[in-house]
């Protein structure tokens, strides 16, 4: 039986910011070395949603990015491809064509990304268009204005309707945590999104700072942990924006491992939304192989 929104509000755990900061700091003192570092870095690569979301996106740009998505650095053998590329709806069909016969999925933002300030009909249309174009995954934004106005039922219903419009596509719900400002809000928005049908919850659009801080991701992972304990259903997590270094990526993975367990350590359940992370991970992998830090010019920019 689905929970009512008032029950979700009642059940939402309270979050103590100082305590979360301490917990995260402790995860950041963990040390990932040797084989576990190489394994972690490869895992991180395989979890990336390689992203371009700009007004100036062109087919040329998307083509180059799609090639990179499954040819990250061909001079290192056995590198995985990234999980997906993430583009605007107008680019879905083209990206899909570029990525045929690969494991890389196509994710599309929708619902008047990034602000979400459009009528529901437009958002549904936006979503259906992306799905019809072949999107495997939909990254929607929630109505932050309505959330901050206290209209939680509206937020819930909107997510539920977009979920319906998604059909078989997996739905990632972007909370835009930088606009929700408190961890208590992040927690409540996570619970609402999960109960309304999100397959993934995602921190940010990448357009607002702060984006995917570890404190925010930790809070969302806790919501996923609680939902799993209640229902046995796994929900995915996607921190997006601001994760540009290997170290931060590894700490995020460790956090997933400690909070949710090793089952979540696949791109089925965890993603990084990032544009520059892949290259930093590649540079670290080159260092692990050769023992030398290469110049950034040894890694392709696409």
């Amino acid at each position: 039986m689905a929970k009512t929104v008032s029950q979700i509000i009642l059940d939402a755990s309270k979050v103590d910011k100082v305590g979360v900061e301490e917990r995260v700091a402790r995860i950041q003192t963990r040390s990932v070395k040797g084989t576990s570092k190489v394994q972690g870095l490869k895992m991180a690569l395989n979890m990336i949603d390689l992203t371009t979301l700009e007004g100036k996106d062109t087919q040329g740009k998307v083509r180059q990015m799609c090639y990179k998505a499954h040819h990250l650095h061909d001079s290192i053998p056995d590198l995985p491809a990234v999980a997906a590329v993430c583009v605007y709806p107008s680019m879905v069909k083209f990206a899909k064509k570029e990525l045929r016969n690969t494991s890389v999925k196509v994710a599309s933002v929708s619902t008047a990304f990034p602000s979400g300030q459009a009528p529901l009909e437009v958002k549904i249309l936006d979503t259906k268009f992306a799905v019809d174009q072949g999107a495997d995954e939909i990254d929607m934004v929630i109505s932050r204005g309505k959330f901050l106005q206290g209209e939680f039922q509206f937020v819930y219903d909107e997510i539920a309707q977009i979920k319906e419009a998604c059909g078989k596509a997996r739905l990632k719900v972007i909370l835009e945590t930088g606009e929700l400002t408190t961890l208590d809000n992040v927690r409540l928005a996570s619970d609402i999104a999960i109960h309304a049908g999100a397959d993934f919850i995602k921190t940010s659009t990448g357009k607002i700072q702060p984006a995917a801080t570890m404190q925010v991701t930790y809070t969302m992972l806790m919501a996923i942990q609680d939902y799993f304990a209640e229902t046995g259903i796994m929900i995915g997590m996607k921190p997006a924006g601001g994760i540009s270094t290997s170290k931060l990526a590894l700490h995020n993975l460790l956090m997933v491992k400690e909070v949710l367990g090793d089952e979540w350590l696949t791109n089925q359940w965890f993603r990084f939304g990032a544009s520059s992370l892949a290259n930093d991970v590649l540079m670290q992998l080159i260092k692990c192989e050769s023992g030398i830090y290469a110049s950034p010019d040894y890694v392709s920019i696409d």
Partner: protein
Amino acid sequence: MNKKEKWPLSPSLESTQHASIKKQYSLFIDGEWVKPSSGVYFPSINPADESHLASIAHANEKDVHLAVQAARKAFPLWSKLPASERAKYIFRIARIMQEKARELAVIETLDGGKPIRESRDIDVPLACNHFFYYAGWADKLAYAFPNRTVEPLGVAAQIIPWNFPLLMAAWKIAPALATGNTVVLKPAESTSLTALKLAEIIEEAGLPKGVVNIITGFGDTGAAMVNHPDVNKIAFTGSTHVGKIIQKAIAGSSKKATLELGGKSANIIFDDAPIDQAVEGIVNGIFFNQGHVCCAGSRLFVQENVAEKVIRKLKLRLKSLYVGNPLDKNTDIGAINSKEQLETIESYIAIGKKEGAEIYQPTCNIPKKGYYCPPTLFINVAQSHRIVQEEIFGPVLTIQTFRTVDEVIQKANNTPYGLAAGVWTDKGSRIFNLTTKLKAGVVWANTYNKFDPTSPFGGYKESGYGREGGVHGLSAYVKLS
């Protein structure tokens, strides 16, 4: 969850190369390294793998007498030194400790079994900060005690425990020196090494001879210190049992004493608490330093309507704790300090089982050699269980439920001890209500096991008397008129 580790962490061992440990340590008396008059040395063992680290001198009554004499001889000079000069020496100790922080952390971990994460991030920095803090007070005593004449007591005999060897040495030595006293300090027999390293640092800092004397040994050495007629002040941290012996020994004498003894502290979780952070607080409260903490939150009280949730989350959290080699930077729970202590803890776990409490221990890969104990929960216990009443001093948590605020206050105070307590709630007014009613020296709100040199620490009832840290810590070492 966590059925099989898909991504195991490779060992990440802290290097021990820069840690220099001598084969044999003599006694540090009157600025010299002196052989024990008995000629007897005892081994210091690494509890993580049972290897031999060094031979430590066993001081007897004669050696104690020499040390007290040296401290007495140094007292007039040290106490009459301009206070700002005294401060300089103490600052110098703090700075040299900081320079050697990594070496001290490694030795602390080797000798005591605590995880390198803790000795590196907590013990050593805090110990340095205590010296810095009290160095600052040395020439400002008139402001600490306005309109009073402040005089030092004389020779302080200080006996410290094995759970925070270097930190406890800092807690004891720093305020004593700042107020112009001279010191004879004895570390616990199982963890003498960092105190001896501190003696080397004090030597390097060029303190006048005899101001700090560090002697090593067992209970008989401590007894000789307590009973020495020329000692003015006893500062002891350790068990309530020994605290009582000391109290008897000094009865009728003019010796002043501060005793920081055992505890069985309550950690209280209300239903409106931020539960996930409270679970972290429970973990930090009882599993910090393998539970070898006098103020450990060893009695957990959870409001009954959230008990199931808290216990479920706690069990899950325990699975992500790493138990093992203390030198591994990822280790959360290291080695139990000694074989004897491991036996004590195991006997209490057996008692708990026999008493019918429900036990939970996560599966851990515990090293074959060395003294280890997995984190242990006893669920559904009552105040009448022995494991709830007696201090176990290990990673063992007892969990009781409660219904109302009044009930939990009554039960939390229903113990011979009164060292610390923790309160977890979203409600500010409730925090203040509890802090005024809990009979404990320290009450933490929405956190646990936080230490700072500016904050006084000490207990009620059988947890001892006197305060260490802060301005209060100064008054234990001065005569006011």
